[in-house]
């Protein structure tokens, strides 16, 4: 696979480390009254989409950026690649913005 890095252009997936669902950016508030449940859901309950999937890739053998890659799990078609840092900052500025469209 080729990941089109937003800063560096196309790079072979072999340079990357795959982590999984990009919902890992949505780490719950540790002080929330239901923090235990929220962290449980955060840690264990993931969608296993057959189709479009936002997921985390780390450019370990590259610029060390964490990326959010939108990939179709059926076709490997990659439609969007974002710097996770940018997405996380935007989310922090506007907690309602999870980066997901629609």
């Amino acid at each position: 696979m080729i990941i089109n890095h937003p800063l560096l252009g196309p790079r072979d997936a072999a340079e990357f480390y795959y982590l999984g669902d990009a919902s890992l950016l949505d780490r719950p508030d540790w002080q929330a009254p239901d923090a235990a449940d929220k962290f449980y859901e955060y840690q264990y309950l993931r969608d296993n989409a057959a189709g479009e999937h936002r997921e985390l890739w780390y450019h370990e053998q590259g610029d060390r950026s964490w990326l959010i890659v939108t990939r179709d799990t059926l076709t490997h078609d990659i439609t969007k690649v974002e710097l996770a840092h940018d997405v996380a900052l935007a989310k922090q500025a506007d907690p309602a913005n999870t980066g997901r469209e629609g």
Partner: protein
Amino acid sequence: MPDMTLKPKTPLNGYSETFGATVLEEIAGMGLVSIATPRGGVDALQGAVQSAYGCALPPTGSSTIGNDGAIRLMGLQPGQVFALFAYDGDTAVTEIEKALGDNGYYTDQSDSWAMLHLSGSAAIDALARICPLDLDASVFPDGTVARTVMEHMGVIVLREGTDGFLLMAARSSAANFLHAVEQSVRNVT
């Protein structure tokens, strides 16, 4: 009291070899310092770099050269550049600190990398055996820098001129890296 002065060693003991028109040699005597940009401090760092070296802070993937040609800044990752300059001492960070003050966070990398310079007609063909990157001058021109993986080893590649490449790999696996590059050159020459 006997003289206990410690003797430095380079990662590849000064390796140098010629393969026809292709030359592979260890580069030593360089200072290498990572400069990280403090959050919110990119303009200050940019200004300090400009006034100290007369060049810009390069974006990730490219490099700039100071106006006296003595230092090269390489954009390695967002918020991090490596400064490469001729230097034989033990405190490379001090040199950068003197120039840039407290506008960046500095980490000495001079001893972290084995540096090889590969140049000549077979350089690109040799690298094609181990380097996944497209090194064609149309996409990887002079001054381009990238970190990638070759033979399971992390490598920083810098293009210098039409057929010269500076290759930096972890010091601990320097011997393996040299072997990989040397084998590649042998396989194509």
